[in-house]
């Protein structure tokens, strides 16, 4: 797994190990470097002294011929890798153990023959010029060069094992903590997904920063699970303790209804009572559902769902109902291919249903309700808009609250929970919910971030 390896290299212990290696390198290079420079200065001085001495020895020759002989004798014995001596006579003749070409400045040296190579590291050169000719003396810097190699080797010798040891130690520590870090990361991911039973349960036995983080995370998850469980318990209690009596009422009224003659005022009253009981239960039901959604638990059931299919289905379901109430329900051309998002199909369907119902209910006959679904780089955008009276800007955030109703909607059916439900589901799906002016009318837009739309 190259990704895993990269992650390991980027981990804190490895970074720290590499930091230590860098520090050791700086110290080692600077101390060794200073020693090298001092030794080199000493060697250079020796070379220069030696040059001075040989220059002095040649100055004893009296004639040009004497000098040439002396140079020839010296050249015969001197190894050009160590010392170069060349005389270029006034007539241009060359004597010596190498070939020197005089340029404008420093003479260029070349080997005199195959068998007599020159030094690799260059020479300290002295050029003496008088009427007898030009004497070129060179003293090899071989010693300095070799010393440099020795010092470089020394630096390497001290650094490479340090590097290997430090990196190995860093990787070992990282690998040991990596498993624990991965566990922590996985636990966080599962908790975020709504799996409230996820725990790190660190049993490494270490008492370090990671074990403290793990323990803290577990405590937090425990607290969250308990509060969700408490909420569930309350929900279940409400459901049971309130809905059961309502069911009993409904049962009793239904029996009453059975005894009444169809079409009689008694039957009519009984029917109304049953409808009211249904409405009361509808409100409990919606409140409980919103609470469950806000607790985040449905996230563990997320699948890839096709929003395009959901929009088409609900446009189809509501088409005749819209027509009957004098509305016109239109769907803008849907994308040709599926529009996948990660989510809960039932909840998303209910959102589309709520938005359509909201528009049908709060706008007069003759209003057009338009559904649209588009997909672009910014994500998936689902919108339901109408040409009705709209929602005043100041009240747009209020209508998302539970049980809030606009003044003019007091008399229309609905329990004031439709948009609160939409807001809770949007939040659960990390989708942005916007209410805007449709000039005239209301546009409700849900924007699903691209991350929540899986690749097709």
């Amino acid at each position, binding site marked *: 797994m190259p990704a895993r390896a990269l992650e390991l290299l980027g981990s804190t212990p490895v970074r720290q190990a590499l930091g230590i290696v860098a520090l050791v390198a700086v110290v080692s290079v600077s101390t060794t470097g200073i020693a090298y420079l001092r030794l080199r200065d000493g060697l250079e001085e020796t070379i220069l002294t030696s040059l001075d001495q040989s220059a002095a020895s040649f100055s004893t020759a009296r004639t040009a011929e004497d000098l040439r002989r002396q140079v020839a004798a010296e050249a015969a014995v001197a190894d050009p890798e160590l010392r170069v001596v060349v005389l270029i006579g006034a007539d241009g003749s060359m004597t010596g153990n190498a070939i020197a070409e005089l340029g404008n400045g420093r003479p260029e040296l070349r080997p005199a023959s195959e068998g007599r190579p020159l030094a690799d590291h260059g020479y300290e050169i002295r050029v003496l010029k008088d009427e007898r000719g030009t004497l070129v003396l060179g003293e090899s810097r071989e010693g300095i060069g070799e010393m440099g190699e020795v010092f470089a080797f020394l630096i390497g010798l001290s650094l490479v094992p340090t590097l290997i040891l430090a990196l190995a130690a860093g990787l070992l520590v990282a690998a040991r903590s990596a498993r624990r870090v991965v566990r922590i990361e996985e636990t966080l991911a599962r908790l975020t997904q709504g799996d409230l039973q996820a725990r790190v349960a660190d049993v490494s036995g270490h008492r370090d920063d990671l074990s403290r983080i793990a323990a803290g995370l577990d405590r937090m998850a425990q607290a969250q699970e308990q509060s969700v469980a408490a909420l569930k318990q309350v929900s279940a209690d409400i459901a049971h303790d309130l*809905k*059961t009596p309502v*069911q*009993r009422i409904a049962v009793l009224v239904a029996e009453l209804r059975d005894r009444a003659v169809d079409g009689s005022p008694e039957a009519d009253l009984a029917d109304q009572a049953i409808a009211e009981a249904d409405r009361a239960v509808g409100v409990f*039901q919606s409140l*409980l*559902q919103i609470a469950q959604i806000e607790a985040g638990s449905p996230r563990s*059931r997320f699948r890839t769902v096709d929003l395009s299919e959901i929009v088409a289905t609900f446009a189809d379901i509501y088409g005749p109902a819209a027509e009957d109430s004098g509305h016109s329900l239109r769907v803008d051309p849907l994308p040709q291919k599926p529009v996948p998002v990660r989510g809960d199909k*039932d909840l998303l369907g209910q959102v589309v249903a709520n938005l359509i119902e909201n528009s049908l209910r709060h706008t007069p006959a003759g209003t057009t309700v338009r559904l649209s679904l588009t997909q672009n780089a910014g994500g998936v955008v689902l919108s339901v808009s109408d040409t009705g009276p709209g929602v005043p800007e100041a009240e747009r955030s209020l209508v998302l609250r539970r049980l809030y109703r606009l003044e003019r909607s007091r008399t229309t059916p609905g329990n004031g929970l439709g948009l609160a439900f939409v807001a809770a589901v949007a939040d659960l799906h990390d989708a942005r919910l916007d209410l805007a002016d449709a000039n005239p009318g209301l546009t409700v837009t849900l924007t699903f971030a691209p991350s929540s739309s899986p690749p097709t």
Partner: protein
Amino acid sequence: MSHWSTAMKLLLIEDDKTIADYVLGGLRQEGHVVDHVTDGREAMSQAMSGPYDVLIVDRMLPGLDGLSLVRALRAAKVLTPAIFLTALGGVDDRIEGLQAGGDDYLVKPFAFGELSARIGALSRRPVQQSAETVLAAGDLRMDLIGRKVTRDGIEIDLLPREFALLEHLMRRKGRVQTRTMLLEAVWDISFDPQTNVVETHISRLRAKVDRPFDRELIRTVRGSGYKIEG
């Protein structure tokens, strides 16, 4: 009046007396034989001993809760269809119920008609098999291959969704289908919208299938739903 041609043997597991009496009364009036227990443990042995057509299980029971009861029955290879009655109506609760091995899930308060229709759907009476290519109800014929509907020889032009709705009703000829059952079967949605969407679709279908003819085939069953007559 009974929705069934044959009586069924049912087991009701419900501890609330008012609701139990109501359900028992209704089911017995329809001609079924119904046993009733109020405790989960008792229900376990009862369900394992006798052959029942359908189990009606309250989720919150003393002794052993309904979810664990059905799970235990399934583990013991008792595959009798079970419908849960429950006050818990969250999405999670519904899925939990189905995962435990329940076949259907009815949230309280429910109308008796809804329960009755759903028990009928669970009773494993064969629906008209998909192998058939022509469905019939009275003088109404549906050609599943040619996607053609005729009544009394006159072709009726239906939209695809109207066709699906009619097909669902015709396959279950004589059996009541509630609004929520139709929503689940035809549109695959498991919640009940507040607007009367099913009624509007049925009325569109009726306008084409029934209105031009003298006999009404698609019948409304008060408090329950719809059925198509044979």
